[in-house]
């Protein structure tokens, strides 16, 4: 299943896929280098990873046309691991990440994405954009004015070049920016930092190597705390990107296959000396914009990237960091969801809080997994709160028979149980109380306990209580957890209060 793909996924869009693949490959190179620098490893680690992940996901991924490679979200998670234990442990962690993702794929955890609401996704994307931008700041502090001028010039080229007639739309402007700035730096012989200063670039094809770490429990203890968040963040970003591509292209994707594909790609990256990666929102959008749709685009992007890097390493090492920073600022601007700022005014406050909380937690912890966790938690709480608004109790008194009828309507669960109990007037002296639950739903033990409490309290006041109209859902849960119809249980409950 994992290697099966439809013919049209590969050959349905050859021209568009090849051209888009080339554009993406050119944009991937600066990103892979930049993310390696974030992680604190040589640029070749990110470049090998990008090649390997792109090529493997082209075959086994669940979303044709999506670009996966070394990413900023993942790079941020491995900083301390690299600092404390070195590259070999990073490679081992990458392998474990892949294994975890494959397991998650087989357990069909991809469907858990349904718990991640739209506002959490938006928060994730915005936080990612902010993190990518912040990661560029070290390159822009304590430097000469040349660097600022170069960066500004680079951004100018990226955004204004496409407006040129004829060539504007046929040459990728980030490439033009890099070539121009490199040319300027060499011509003026500027003394500014270049990619070559940042570490080793690949000069050969990647070779298969097993990470040089002892295979002990100790190693597992070191890498597991990194691999688990890496696996989670990798899957989150990949599945979110897949959703974005689904929307853009109006075609479905296989989310569980994507998890397995990401896992396999990370295992491959780990074995070829690359860092863990996942799908990239910005690059995937560029791919779709450039006309890429099929698996071929991802394959071309990955393989062309490697060819370029291996044969042009002399030139790539001369690229000034300022050019890279311009490209990365573009990526961060493009990743940011602009509409989420515009929509802040119209959206309900709870949605905005979820989105902003996700952003704040991520920017604070530098860990996208925590942000998503907080976002999902908040969204669930807000949801529970909203649902409990849809519960009310109406009542009427039949004076002739001294009977009070309460009619509960809506969802009764942990959050609305208090409101449910508060609706009863226990001080009223009546002979009979009828609780009509025809239109109510009981969801959990808390709500059942609340009903029990109400019934017992009325009995103690000397009223006969009749509970009617429990629909099936309510009946089963009351049957399993209810105690009010078992006299010997009454004392147990009341004794504690």
């Amino acid at each position, binding site marked *: 299943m994992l290697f099966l793909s439809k013919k049209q996924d590969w050959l349905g869009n050859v021209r*568009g896929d090849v*051209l888009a693949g080339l554009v993406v490959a050119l944009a991937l190179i600066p990103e892979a280098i930049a993310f390696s620098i974030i992680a604190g490893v040589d640029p070749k680690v990110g470049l090998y990873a990008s090649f390997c992940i792109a090529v493997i996901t082209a075959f086994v991924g669940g979303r044709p046309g999506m670009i996966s490679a070394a990413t900023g979200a993942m790079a941020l998670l491995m900083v301390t691991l690299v600092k404390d234990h070195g590259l070999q442990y990073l490679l081992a962690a990458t392998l474990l990440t892949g294994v975890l993702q494959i397991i998650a794929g087989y357990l069909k955890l991809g469907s858990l994405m349904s718990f991640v609401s739209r506002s959490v996704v938006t928060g994730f994307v915005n936080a990612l954009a902010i993190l990518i931008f912040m990661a560029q700041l070290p390159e822009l502090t304590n430097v000469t004015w040349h660097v600022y001028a170069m960066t500004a010039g680079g951004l100018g080229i990226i*955004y204004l070049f496409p407006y040129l007639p004829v060539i504007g739309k046929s040459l990728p402007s980030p490439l033009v920016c890099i070539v121009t700035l490199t040319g300027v730096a060499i011509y003026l012989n500027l003394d500014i930092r270049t990619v070559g200063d940042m570490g080793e670039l690949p000069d050969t094809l990647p070779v298969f190597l097993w990470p040089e770490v002892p295979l002990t429990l100790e190693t597992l203890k070191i890498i597991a705390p990194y691999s688990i968040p890496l696996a989670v963040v990798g899957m989150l970003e990949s599945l979110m990107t897949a959703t974005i591509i689904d*929307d853009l292209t*109006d075609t479905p994707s296989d989310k569980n296959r994507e998890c397995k594909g990401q896992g396999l790609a990370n295992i491959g990256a780990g074995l070829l000396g690359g860092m863990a990666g996942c799908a990239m929102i*910005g690059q995937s*959008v560029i791919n779709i914009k450039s*006309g890429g*749709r099929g698996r071929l685009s991802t394959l071309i992007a990955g393989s062309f990237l490697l060819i370029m890097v291996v044969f042009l390493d002399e030139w790539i090492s001369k690229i000034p960091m300022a050019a890279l920073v311009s490209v990365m600022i573009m990526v961060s601007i493009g990743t940011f969801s*602009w509409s989420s700022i515009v929509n802040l005014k119209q959206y309900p406050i709870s949605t905005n809080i979820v989105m902003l909380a996700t952003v704040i937690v991520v920017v604070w912890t530098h860990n996208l997994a925590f942000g998503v966790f907080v976002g999902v938690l908040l969204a669930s709480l807000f949801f529970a709160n909203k649902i409990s608004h849809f519960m009310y109790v109406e009542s009427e008194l039949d004076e002739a028979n001294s009977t009070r009828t309460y009619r509960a309507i809506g969802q009764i669960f942990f959050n609305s149980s208090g409101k449910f109990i508060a609706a009863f007037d226990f001080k009223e002296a009546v002979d009979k109380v009828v609780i009509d639950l025809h239109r109510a739903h009981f969801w959990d033990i808390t709500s059942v306990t609340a009903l029990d409490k109400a019934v017992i309290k009325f009995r103690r006041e000397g009223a006969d209580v009749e509970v009617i109209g429990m629909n099936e859902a309510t009946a089963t849960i009351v049957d399993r957890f209810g105690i009010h119809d078992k006299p010997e249980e009454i004392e147990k409950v009341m004794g504690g209060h």
Partner: protein
Amino acid sequence: MTTDTNRVLACIDGSILSEAVCDYAAWIAQRVDAPLKLLHVIDHHPETAATMDLSGNIGLGSQEQLLEELTAVEQQRSKLRLQQGKLLLQAAKDRVIQAGIANPDSNQRHGSLVESLIELEESIRVLVIGIRGKVHENQPDKIGAKLESIIRSLHKPILVVNEAFKAPQRIMIAYDGSEAAEKAVNMVANSPLYKGLTCHLVYVSKDATATEQLLQPVADKLTNAGGIEVISKILLGKPDQLLCEYQDKHAIDMVVMGAFSHTRLHDLLLGSFTAKMLTTTKKPLLLLR
């Protein structure tokens, strides 16, 4: 709901064969007294990009902008196709009404043809489809690109139309003694479609051992249950060639046979008899699955 599960479904795409498809579908619908449904499928080919912008940059709101752009382009294209499809269906409807069908249904669906047919499979009694669509319209030696996967994925009788309509008088059953052929014979015997037609029961053997006796019980079954006049014949040699020659010689109007009874792998290595028949025959093929 009984009428809904028993339709003659005709696939219309506006190619030259669409008219013949309508006529054959009307002929079948009248003979078996089943409702007729005309289907036009709009395939958007989402695997192919409509726009291309190689500037390779993304800025504020470019994701939203891209979605907007792609939606606008696709909306325009789809509207046009929707309109064209409506006209095609109307023309087809007029044609089958003239042929004597009282209330033909028409249906337009989005998606690929194969997927749409799989979704509709439950409601199909017989599928009528042209041997090639608009893409290969002027290449008489080619069969439609999706035809094989349609035939493989559906488990209903499929009439593949390849020439203008002529009410069938003489049909030929290509019989090879296999389970699929046996099933085909049973279906022919039990269907009102073939009542009063002359049926040539043809068996192509690779060696001379087969005798007419082999065909006798089959012929009897057809005559008794179906009220069909049967002429049995045993030929010696290569099946697809001989069957087509026989078809020409005896002015056969329609060929009935089982289809794709082997696995894809087998057909990939040895070639499929059904595929060969589809390319060689000049008469409509009724494939029974």
